[in-house]
Structure formats: structure tokens, C-alpha cells
């Protein structure tokens, strides 16, 4: 480093501003992260303490303390959506896991054309959720939909079943679409797990007297658990932010009966323009996602430790 000369004020200035090398090297990353993540995050956090409305930009300076949070805590619609999201998440994840497991087990047994089958298996993932939403909106339509048509042609039902209108049926229909689209995520990850299982312990289990079910239960499944938890962690984040498909299929209706957290927050923020309140609900909801992620990662870590794969 050049020793600054006392005669040169410029040199002195340079020395005073000299940053430690580690900071200089990290600066680009820090600047990008600040621009992309930190500032929006802080801004939205700040706005959740204001009465910020999209239609009145100046309201962002109107500090109202924790009013939005108190309002959310007392809002029945918010907690109903919260509970419904948890329910939706639980049903969708568990069914996707079970179907994915079954799918993976079957595909792993196929001897001819397995590559083709694996590709076909991933087709549903290749569509935009919006399109899947439109497709299932049509399939479950009570007048022209495929399901009702089929049921009536087969004589299984004489009336038009209101798939997307009845509250319970509508949630079922959305879950159905969600499961159709994303079961293959579980399928693919579990299949990867099945390929990674060493054959020796399975053979040892056979000699030790296990039936095929017992081999699966006591040897295969423990090996698959880390893969299942990884899939669960990824998918819980996905499902917890479910918006597009619900928005298309029911728009949270009828009468809020399929309202999930993000359709509610989206409507509050952009339709009702109450961005401050929407941000407050968003921050509460984030905890749900964080909770599930932490939960499944804990499970993953302990399942890996069980298998002696280290933390």
C-alpha cells in the first residue's frame, strides 16, 4: 500500500476511504442483495405499520403503529384463510406424497420403456399453473365440464354436481388440480431415492425373513425418508404460497369458502388497494411457510442422521 503523503490532501482522502479488502470483494453482492431483497423487504415491513393504500401514495407516511397487525389478529376472514391454507397444505402434501410414492415404486419396477415413462410422468409439471387452473375449471364446470358429463352419461348422477360452487367440493376440486400437477415432483424425487438405495440390505432383509411388505416397511422406507422430507420442504413452500390456480378456478369463492392466504392478501392489496394491511397479513403468513420449512428440515436432518449420513 502506498503511504499517503501529508502534502497531498487527495492522497489523505483516499486513505481515509480505503475499505478492508473483504468488504470491497463482497460489495457487489451486498449492493445487489440490498437492491433486490433487503430494500423491498424493509419497505414492505415499514408499510405494514402505515395505512398505505395504493390509490393514495402519500398515505405511506401515515404511521399507524401495530394497528394493521391488531386488525389482522381479529379478522375472522384472515384466520379462516389461514386455517384453510394449513388444511389445504396438509391434504395436498400428504396425498401427493402417497401418490408420488406409489408412482415411483411402480415406475421403478418397469423394465422396458422406463425412460419414456419418467418423461411422461413429468408432463404435468411442464404446464403453467394458470393453464392447469383453466383446464380444471373446465373439467369441473357444472354445465359443460367433463366430470359431470361423464357422471351423467354413465348414469351415476342425474343432477349437475356444483364442483366449483359448493364450498367443500370446490376445495376438493382445487386440491385435485394441485395434486394432478405436482404429484410427479414427489414421484421424481422418490424415484431418485429408490435408485440410490443399496441392494445389499434389501437382500439381507429377504434372507432375514422379510416379506416384500416388511422389506419395504423396515428397509426401503427409512432409506426414502430423507428424499420424502426434501420433497415435502420444497412443496410446502410452493403450496403455502398457492395463488394462481385458486385465483383462476374459484377466485377464492364462493363466498370466500376457498379463500387461501395469498388470494386474500392479493385481493386486499391490489383490489381493495389496502397495501399496508396486506403487507401485515403477508408477514404473519410468512411464519407459516417458515414453520413448515424448519419442521421438514429438522425431520430431514434426523432422518439423515438415522441413516448415518451425518447432519
Amino acid at each position, binding site marked *: 500500500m502506498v503511504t499517503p503523503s501529508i502534502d497531498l490532501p487527495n492522497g489523505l482522502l483516499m486513505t481515509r476511504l480505503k475499505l478492508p479488502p473483504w468488504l470491497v470483494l463482497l460489495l457487489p453482492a451486498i449492493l445487489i442483495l440490498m437492491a433486490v431483497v433487503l430494500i423491498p423487504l424493509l419497505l414492505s415491513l415499514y408499510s405494514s405499520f402505515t395505512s398505505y393504500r395504493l390509490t393514495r401514495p402519500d398515505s405511506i407516511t401515515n404511521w399507524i403503529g401495530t394497528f394493521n397487525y391488531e386488525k389482522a389478529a381479529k379478522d375472522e376472514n384472515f384466520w379462516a384463510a389461514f386455517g384453510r391454507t394449513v388444511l389445504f397444505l396438509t391434504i395436498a402434501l400428504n396425498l401427493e406424497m402417497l401418490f408420488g410414492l406409489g408412482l415411483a415404486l411402480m415406475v421403478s419396477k418397469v423394465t422396458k420403456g422406463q425412460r419414456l415413462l419418467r418423461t411422461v410422468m413429468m408432463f404435468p409439471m411442464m404446464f403453467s399453473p394458470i393453464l392447469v387452473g383453466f383446464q380444471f375449471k373446465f373439467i369441473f364446470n357444472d354445465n359443460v365440464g367433463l366430470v359431470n358429463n361423464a357422471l351423467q352419461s354413465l348414469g351415476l348422477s342425474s343432477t349437475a354436481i356444483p364442483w366449483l360452487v359448493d364450498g367443500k367440493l370446490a376445495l376438493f376440486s382445487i386440491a385435485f388440480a394441485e395434486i394432478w400437477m405436482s404429484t410427479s415432483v414427489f414421484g421424481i424425487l422418490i424415484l431418485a431415492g429408490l435408485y440410490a438405495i443399496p441392494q445389499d440390505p434389501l437382500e439381507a432383509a*429377504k434372507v432375514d425373513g422379510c416379506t416384500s411388505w416388511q422389506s419395504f416397511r423396515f428397509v426401503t422406507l427409512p432409506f426414502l425418508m430423507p428424499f420424502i422430507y426434501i420433497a415435502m420442504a420444497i412443496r410446502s413452500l410452493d403450496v403455502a404460497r398457492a395463488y394462481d390456480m385458486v385465483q383462476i378456478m374459484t377466485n377464492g369463492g364462493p363466498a370466500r369458502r376457498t379463500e387461501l392466504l395469498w388470494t386474500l392478501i392479493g385481493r386486499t392489496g391490489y383490489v381493495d388497494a389496502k397495501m399496508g394491511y396486506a403487507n401485515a397479513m403477508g408477514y404473519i403468513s410468512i411464519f407459516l411457510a417458515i414453520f413448515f420449512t424448519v419442521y421438514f428440515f429438522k425431520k430431514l436432518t434426523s432422518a439423515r442422521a438415522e441413516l448415518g449420513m451425518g447432519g
Partner: protein
Amino acid sequence: MAQVHLRSVVKKYGGLQVVHAINLDIADGEFVVLVGPSGCGKSTTLRMIAGLEDISGGEVLIGDRVVNDLPPRERNLAMVFQNYALYPHMSVRENLGFSLKIAKRSQSEIDRAVDDAAEILSLTPLLDRKPGQLSGGQRQRVAMGRAIVRHPDVFLFDEPLSNLDAKLRTQMRVEIKKLHQRLKSTIVYVTHDQVEAMTLADRIVIMRDGHIEQIGTPLEVFERPNTTFVATFIGSPPMNMLPARVGGGRVVLTDGTAFDIPPGHKVEEGQDVIFGARADNIMPVGHSLPATEHVAEVKMSVQLTEPLGTETLLFAQLAGQEVQAKMLNPRPVASGEVLTFQINLDKCHLFDAETGASLRV
């Protein structure tokens, strides 16, 4: 406990036949070792006994039951695998007790059996560990313990020591032998290591290309090999094999050196043969065992020496071929030094040059 019988057992993978109609009778309590180079079908044979491979032809009997169509779990066997095949998510205790748990035995019975097995194999301090926290030798012992808790009819070992280092291998070999003496159970053991085969077996089955080359006690296969393959496979260093022809009632090597016909062999005049002699039976005069009845003497130039302490291995040239010989009470030998060697013809072998079959009568 039970006998095992193989009757014309065949294994085919599609059009490829890897085991060719082998017959083998294993007595109750016998320790039989299947040995051979890799790809000879020994592991496949063992896996057919275990039920992990389908049997393409012939019959496998355990006790007096034909087990061809029984799944492994109904054969009452225990198997120790090369890679131990422990259940990584279970503790040592759970690994040992797993088969009994599957068989729905009572917890107290499982505990007793596990404690006994752990005691025998000195695994007691390790019972609560996971396989990932054990060394190779300890894992091997757990794998053996898992086999013995079941009191199976037959133990199957598939190259159980090949993943261990040399020292541990020797130690575990002794433990397996002790275990057999203690349990007096029928054991079928597969290895490619002829030393393991010699040291462990009651009887050795030498396999090659899906055929059985010879069955016999370790000493039988060592002293009376049926074929050149067995002669070179069993014993270390491998037997010296020199091409020769029978002429004038003697064995004549390619350079004209001639010996008497080793006793006990039937040859025809002019027959092409292979003369086989182990290093132990070729020794320099003055550094050999007391002379036996039939001895040939031959001068050879020593090219290389390998001192082993109590003896030195000499690499010499005879009839244009390298011959290994042994020197007892060794003295330093210079490279190129010519020594007179005594060949103990009583222990030498003649094989048909074409078929490789022994000409012993």
C-alpha cells in the same frame, strides 16, 4: 442344522450360461468353501442356495426339502455379505435382533439371543451404536452376529473378508473358524482367496467357468490336484509348470533336461505332458529337506532372490522358463550364481498337455 445338496444346478442369464450343471453334497456341520477366480460362478451358486437368484435348472435341497421355489425367508438360512449389508438406520442391537423381530419372537427371547451373540463376538459395548459409527472389522462382526442369532440351518458367507485389511482378515479368519467349531453348523463360504479356502475349509470346491474342477480336503487339492488349473490356483507361490515330452521312459524338458517319471503316474511314450513341481520341492543341495527316495538333480542359474527370513525364494531359469525354488537355512545368493537343485520327484506331478488333466493313477 442340515445338509445341502445341489443336483445338476444350472444358472442362465438369457442365453448366457454361467453355472453348468454342478453337483455338490454338503454334509451336516461341514465347512465347505467355494473358491475360484472372479466370474467362475461361485457367488451365483451361493446366491442360488440363498434364494436370491432363480435356479434355471436342476435342484437345490436343504435338509431333504427341495427349495427351488421357496423364497429366501422360508429357507431358514443366514447370509453374511461382502459389504456387510447392515441396516444403517438401526442400532447394532436392532440389526442383530431384526430377524427375530420379523419372526415375531418375544422381546425377552430376542434380548437373550442378541446378548449371547454380542458376547460371542465381543460386540457388547457397541450394541447401541449405529453401523456408521463402526470400523470395518466391527461391522463384519455385526454381520456375523446377525447370522448367528437365528440359529439357521445353514450359514452362507459371500466373500466376507475381502473388504478388510490383511491383518484384520487373518484375525477374522480365526474367529470364523472358532465360530464354526463352537456352533458346529453347516457353512458354505465363497472366496477368491485360496489361503482363506485352505485355512478354513473342511472341503474345498474349486470352480472355474461355471464348472467344478475339483472337490476335496485342503490337503487333497494341494497334494493331488486333478488339473493344471487347480495346481496353479491352490498354493503360494503357484506350482511351476514346465512343458515336456515322455521319451525313453523319462520326462524330457524342451531343453533336453530329463527326469525320471514321478512315481504314481501313467504315461505313454511320446506323450506331451506338463511337469509340475512346487517351489517347496525344488531346493538347492545343502539347503533342502532330507532327500527322499526319488530325487532329480539339476543345475540352474539364479536370477533373483526374495528373502523371507526362515527361507529364501529363488527365481531361476530352467528350459527357458522361470522356475521358483526355495532355499532353507538361507545364505546370500548372488544374481547369476549357478546352484545345483534337488527336485523331490515323489511330490511332483504330470498333467496331460492337451487336456490339463492329472496323469496320476
